[in-house]
């Protein structure tokens, strides 16, 4: 069964209006640029997007927000983005904010077949509202449920024809977790190689978690906060 697809457009072709999708990346680092562009071209609406951030005005998920394709964002940190703020305040966009570690763990739980996990994050705060709190050894934890999503879309550095993925530096972030959490997982990679070329000890996401893979093009890899030091 071939996992290779020709393009981002083919990869996302069966994502429909109203789907729940996960998108890897932290800020603009390690985001699936090609698939986001394809989703914008496709023009589907009413999406629920699970992603740590929501992009900026003219890049990342911000591009989908501009086209009003997103009904709901589930993130840990949003709003580097004026259009996002406008839609939120006008009630066009719904936002659910969850702690970053909880976001990561709920992906992990999905990928590892665990229906729920316990985390102390948010105990005693409004995040705990409506959730079960349970004590283990006098410490309180919240019960947080595994995500269930139709599609997970991730970006890796290298991939092979079996769907094995390797990420680079901090562009790894949520990508391997979301790759495990999708019913259908789509991976775009900078370099696509034949099976056998990646060292099996170096693989971060085994191909069993990946259903479609393609070589992305024209990565911009925009930097959100360019910080440098002076040469002494």
């Amino acid at each position, binding site marked *: 069964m071939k996992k290779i697809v020709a393009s981002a457009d083919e990869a996302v072709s069966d994502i429909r209006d109203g789907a729940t999708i996960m998108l890897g990346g932290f800020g603009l680092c390690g985001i699936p640029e090609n698939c986001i562009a394809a989703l914008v071209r496709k023009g589907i609406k009413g999406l629920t997007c699970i992603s740590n951030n929501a992009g900026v005005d003219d890049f990342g998920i911000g591009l989908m927000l501009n086209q009003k394709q997103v009904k709901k964002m589930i993130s840990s940190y949003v709003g580097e983005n004026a259009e996002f703020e406008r839609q939120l305040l006008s009630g066009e966009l719904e936002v659910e904010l969850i*702690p970053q570690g909880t976001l990561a763990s709920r992906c992990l739980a999905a990928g590892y077949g665990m229906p729920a996990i316990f985390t102390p994050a948010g105990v005693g705060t409004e995040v705990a509202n409506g959730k079960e709190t349970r004590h283990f050894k006098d410490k309180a934890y919240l019960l947080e449920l595994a995500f269930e999503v139709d599609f997970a879309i991730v970006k890796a550095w290298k991939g092979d024809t079996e769907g094995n993925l390797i990420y680079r530096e901090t562009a790894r972030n949520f990508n391997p977790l979301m790759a495990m959490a999708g019913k259908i997982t789509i991976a775009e990679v900078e370099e696509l190689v034949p099976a056998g070329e990646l060292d099996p000890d170096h693989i*971060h996401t085994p191909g069993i978690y990946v259903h479609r893979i393609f070589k992305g093009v024209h990565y911009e890899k925009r930097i959100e906060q360019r910080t440098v030091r002076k040469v002494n």
Partner: protein
Amino acid sequence: MALTKEQIAKHIAKELRDGYYVNLGIGIPTLVANYIPEGINVVLQSENGLLGMGPFPFEGEEDPDLINAGKQTITTVPGSAFFDSAMSFGMIRAGKVDLTVLGAMEVSERGDIANWKIPGKMVKGMGGAMDLVASARNIIVAMVHSNPKGGSKLLPECTLPLTGVRCVRKIVTDLAELDITNEGFKLIARAPGVSVEEIKSKTAGKLIVEGDVPEMIF
């Protein structure tokens, strides 16, 4: 004289011990990395998936795949390791990070912290702050003593939505170093030239002053 941001950071850096793994939040906490005492090695954790964070890159050497939790371009030091966000918060939850320094809008005398949400303003989210404060073994808050309107940020109870409960161990402000104790804020040290009376007048929560409170030394 009230401390500068740099002095707050420098004073907090005295808490560092050799071999510590440390997570520094955005703002003043980031500056702590500039004042690591000589002979002490600490490893900086960035919760987006890095142990062994180095300084900012030289101009032209920025790598878009290499950022910190503040989304700034950074570098790594020899012996660094990358990992995913689940492992990153896993090691935080498991208490492997020895010290977390972060900013706050309010801290209560019980050690509750509020630093993520102001009702009526656009809420950007808690990011990793709730995970950090719920899990780190040792949390130091770096902040100014009073808010822009002159009100105390050290309160009997937080008025803003909480980030975490009973988690802060120490606060270093521009005026003082204070420990959270069962009885309230305990004054440990004063900024040079700042009187106990001034600190008392600017601390809304219960302040405990025992004996002679030393001045900080820089």
